[in-house]
């Protein structure tokens, strides 16, 4: 479908007039003494593809189960489409969920699995037929309608689960690690398929995942969670480029964290600071987005691909460091060099392999210069 899409920026979270579809106000959930969710505030807007990302045990699944109605918050209020859902049981919510195990009914055929929800609302027979056919078409399962779940492959089961949860056209679809059981290649294909279906149906998706790549690929916004708290909510690009804490920076992708003491740079541009991180090394020149006090301890986070490796320092870049290559990870398209500075600090730098391997410019034990610009990294205070 070669269709020209109008270039409209989708960012309802920046619009103060927009009304969120889901509002979580000071949600806390305790199981006995254990606090699974600690005072979370969250807005999710219509047509968003929202990802809850975090390590296992961070509370992301508990939060999702509260949206589905399988758990009730100990404190706080959840509203869906303006309605307080505290007293609404799962079978009365306009929310459907796709389970991690898919939870397909083993004794029913693919067709009957998809029709299950529609039959519960006593839809007329021809309406059910029509809707199920539509869902089968959407997920390309027409040929498998009469099969039982154990007669189809894992990828097809995943699509049946998706079709079943979309059949009732819910306002909100919750996906609990939907691609966890698929192998890597299939997972990547399915991610794009999910995005496509989300766009075509216009449903709001909330996905729970521990796979940061998956969250970055599919989501319009990502909430990074840790130990029952939300660390940061932002678009994938902002999460990657503007993390607000060392935890977020470290959780998403690879990062070098340089710990040092800040001092404002005399006569420099606004926010420019120097970070002294080791004796005998030039301080890192950086730009802080929030005011930093003289001598305050800061963390400078810089991604490996923002650092270039060369035989001579790059005069166009403000920051330089001299070191020795102690390790090279060759990944085909890119190579990651681990360079040890004089202070002993290890820095990773990634370079594109634009030349053939045999003609590589650097090898083990080579002494090289690392260069990066003033704005390449972010200054973090926690």
């Amino acid at each position, binding site marked *: 479908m070669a269709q020209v899409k109008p270039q409209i920026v989708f960012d309802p979270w920046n619009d103060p007039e927009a009304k969120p579809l889901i509002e979580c106000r000071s949600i806390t959930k305790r199981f006995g003494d254990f606090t699974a969710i600690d005072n979370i505030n969250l807005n999710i807007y219509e047509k968003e593809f929202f990802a809850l990302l975090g390590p296992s045990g961070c509370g992301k699944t508990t939060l999702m189960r509260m949206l589905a109605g399988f758990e009730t918050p100990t404190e706080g209020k959840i509203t869906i489409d303006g309605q307080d859902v505290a007293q609404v049981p*799962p079978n009365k919510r306009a929310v*459907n*969920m796709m389970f991690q195990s898919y*939870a397909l*009914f083993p004794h029913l055929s693919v067709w009957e699995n998809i029709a*299950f929800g529609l039959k519960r*609302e006593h839809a007329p027979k021809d309406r059910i037929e029509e809707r199920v056919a539509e869902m089968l078409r959407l997920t390309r399962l027409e040929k498998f309608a009469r099969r039982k779940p154990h007669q*189809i*492959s894992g990828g097809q089961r995943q699509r049946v689960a998706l079709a079943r949860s979309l059949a*009732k056209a819910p306002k909100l679809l919750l996906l609990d690690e939907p691609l966890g059981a698929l192998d890597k290649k299939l997972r990547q294909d399915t991610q794009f398929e999910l995005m496509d279906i989300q766009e075509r149906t216009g449903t709001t998706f909330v996905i729970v995942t521990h796979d940061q790549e998956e969250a970055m690929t599919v989501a319009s916004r990502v909430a990074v969670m840790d130990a029952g708290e939300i660390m940061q909510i932002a678009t994938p690009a902002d999460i990657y480029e503007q993390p607000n804490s060392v935890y977020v920076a470290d959780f998403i992708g690879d990062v070098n964290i340089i710990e040092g003491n800040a001092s404002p740079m005399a006569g420099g541009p606004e926010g420019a600071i120097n970070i002294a991180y080791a004796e005998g090394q030039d301080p890192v020149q950086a730009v802080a987005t929030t005011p930093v006090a003289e001598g305050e301890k800061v963390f400078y986070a810089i991604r490996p691909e923002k650092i270039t490796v060369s035989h001579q320092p790059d005069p166009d870049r403000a920051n330089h460091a001299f070191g020795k290559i102690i390790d090279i990870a060759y990944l085909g398209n890119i190579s990651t060099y681990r360079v040890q500075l004089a202070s002993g600090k290890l820095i990773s730098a990634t370079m594109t392999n634009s030349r053939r391997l045999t003609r590589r410019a650097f090898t083990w034990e080579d002494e090289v210069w690392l260069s990066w610009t003033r704005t390449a990294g972010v200054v973090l205070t926690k």
Partner: protein
Amino acid sequence: MNKRLSWFNVTSLSLGFAFLYLPMLILIFYSFNESKLVTVWAGFSTKWYVELMHDQPFLDAAWVTLKVAVSSSTLATVLGTMAAITLVRMGRFPGRTLFSGMIYAPLVMPDVITGLSLLLLFIAIGLDRGIFTIMLAHTTFSMCYVSVVVSSRLLTFDRSLEEASMDLGASGFTTFRLVTLPIILPAVISGWLLAFTLSLDDLVIASFTTGPSSTTLPIKIFSAVRLGVSPEINALSTLMITVVAVGVVSASLVSKRAILKQRREEQEGERV
């Protein structure tokens, strides 16, 4: 590996089978005896079977036994399944350990004690003893067997299936009817069969709780044997062995075919 049977294997196998089945074979053999004396062979005959068909007290007892077995095993299946669901699904409610212990206690309780205590209860509440009290007593002791079978199936049951059903708009009861029950049905049926056979051959509890008007087959056989074993009883026992054997063999064939079918379908699924 040596696949041939050694003399040791052959001996232990034949000894085992002899212990298990020799008594029954002798019983079946003598049921076709012409003679009225049980242990003296006088030629082949089926006359004792014909005679059995005209023996009204035996037929009445068989009918009572069947009624008791069907009703008590059905009631025990309903109650046992409900108990199993409560124990497995409701989590840690207060008194759960006590409750589960009490469910399984009749498994190890001697029949004499169960029978006696039920008899005392029926006398205390003034319930006339008869077919109804036997039925109640059999339900009491066979319920725990059903509960054991069903709860072991429920433990391996994926909870998210029920959640998925609720999520798609089904109420708790609809979920049980359309999702839980169809999946645990094989366990429920084997629980029913277990309760049925337990009721069929129970002598001790039935004799405690029976009344003058209702005699079950085991009670009838037991009292008849005390007056001497007649070839008629051999014939009756042979019939019972046949019924049980046919039941067991067909049940195992059905489950074996179900497993083979599932395996075949799974292989087809992998080829897709």
